[in-house]
């Protein structure tokens, strides 16, 4: 493991799975390993830094074209292997900066590579695999959509380094022609625009917001703490429909997603009447 560049994602992947996740034929940025958790077989996946990435605009934990397509192949292999048997939970450990921004990426269709892994996660969920997203660090923009969005259950560390957002603050400030200070102030009033993970939790998407004493350096105690919550999330997912409805049906969503709930109700009424 010594030649591998470390990251929060890699440390938690190794702590939870006991492996480095390297698999021949995968790019070095992809971690994938079978493991056991709560007495059952599971699969851990994640993205780690790879300074030698073939794609120079990827390699710093971005979701690039290789991460999308090889990641898809890895997930499809799990779905296929479990086709006639117990569906192993798929646990994605996420500390991923964003999607990769580059000319090469656009030319070879990064939008499709990202769509492919989304479809694989969604199909895994629909097939009965509990799909769990464990957000230990950054999970911004395309990383959220590609790695976390289709999970039955999302768990995030309650930590300032954890970031779920549409866009980094400096870029969002440039595009919306606001200062960073103005964006911070807006975030206080408009919860969906806030950058702290506590505000994200208020939208109802998270199964758990987890205060971990050592978010940068897992130890036996914190690893056991995270594993316990993962097992609970897996069991909870297995008891629920294989959809994302748990998010919109959460107590938090009843407060902040009133408009979503109204759209759902009215669309159903008008669809039936049309």
């Amino acid at each position, binding site marked *: 493991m010594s030649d591998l560049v470390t990251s929060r994602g890699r440390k938690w992947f190794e702590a939870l799975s006991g492996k480095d996740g390297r698999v021949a034929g995968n790019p070095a940025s992809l971690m994938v390993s079978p493991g056991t958790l709560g007495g059952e077989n599971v699969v851990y996946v994640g993205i780690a830094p790879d300074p030698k990435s073939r794609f120079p605009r990827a390699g710093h934990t971005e979701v690039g074209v290789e991460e999308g*397509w090889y990641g898809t192949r890895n997930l499809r292999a799990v779905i296929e292997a479990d086709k006639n048997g117990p569906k192993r939970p798929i646990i994605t450990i996420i500390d991923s900066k964003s999607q990769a921004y580059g000319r090469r990426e*656009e030319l*070879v269709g990064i939008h499709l590579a990202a769509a492919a892994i*989304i479809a694989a996660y969604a199909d895994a969920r629909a097939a009965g695999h509990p799909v769990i997203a464990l957000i230990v660090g950054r999970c911004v923009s395309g990383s959220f959509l590609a790695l976390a969005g289709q999970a039955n259950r999302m768990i995030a560390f309650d930590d300032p380094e954890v970031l779920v*957002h549409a866009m980094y603050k400096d*870029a969002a400030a440039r595009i919306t022609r606001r200062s960073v200070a103005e964006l911070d102030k807006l975030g206080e009033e408009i919860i*969906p625009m806030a950058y702290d993970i506590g505000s994200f939790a208020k939208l109802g998407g998270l199964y758990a917001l987890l205060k971990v004493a050592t978010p940068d350096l897992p130890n036996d105690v914190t690893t056991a703490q995270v594993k316990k919550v993962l097992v609970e999330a897996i069991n909870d997912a297995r008891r629920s429909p294989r959809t994302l409805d748990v998010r919109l049906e959460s107590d938090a969503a009843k407060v902040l997603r009133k*408009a979503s709930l109204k759209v759902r109700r009215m669309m159903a009424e008008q669809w039936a009447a049309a």
Partner: protein
Amino acid sequence: MTFTPTLSKDVLELSSRRSYIELNARDRARQLLDDGTFHELLGPFDRVESPWLPIQGIVPQADDGCVVAKGKIDGQPAVVIAMEGKFQGGSIGEVCGMKMAEAFRLARQDNEKGIPTRAVLSLESGGVRLQEANMGELVIAEIYAEMVALRKYTPLIVVITGPTGCFGGMSLAAGLATYVVMTRQARLSMNGPEVIEQEAGKAEFEASNKPFVWSVNGGAQRYATGFADVLVEDDAVAITAAVRDLFRKGQPAQLRTDQYELFIKRLSSLDTSKQWTGEDIRNAWKENAQ
């Protein structure tokens, strides 16, 4: 004295053509549905608007920039969702995103009940609405979930004509589509040109160089490299016919998002130490066609 114009065939053809690009979202949905079958759901009179824009001093729109209409295509039950590029750049916020997700959900439920229902998504979108940031992200994830569920029952067709194009979260929705229809004017790209230039510099992506931008993400390039299934002129009738013909074609042998072996082979064959042109990728794809 009477003046008899002698117009070339091309000019006559152009003058009789009705632009799809110039249609607003409502007229696009009406256009794609069989005559007289357009029935809008959650229309402007329902006034379900973004709750997040007014508190930021931004005037909302009564349909939140998304038109959902039930009707028929080629005589079969269908739903058309059309994004309005002129409202907030076609960005996805809570209300318009939920309208889209619910339309797919209801179409899927009808399919499950044995009412075969088709779906078309006409996209003009810059991606997530930054004023609704994380709400948009959550809703977009729900849209994808419904698209993946629905496309098992029916082809799900995305139409991208421009002028806005299709970027960010909605480019991934195009990736999830069973079929993609584009015009030459349209663009399909995950990251907007300005964002790439900002992140990676002008040498990586020169956003102001329009021929360059279109050579990467324009409809002709996307069609030539297999990211779009049909390349059509900006002609409302031709686009409607293309959609109808794709539904007649039915489900493909393989969804594009299932082509991981092909794309891994293609990626492996590329020399990533240099920058490429659109033509480089057209040629590389020809060498690894299957």
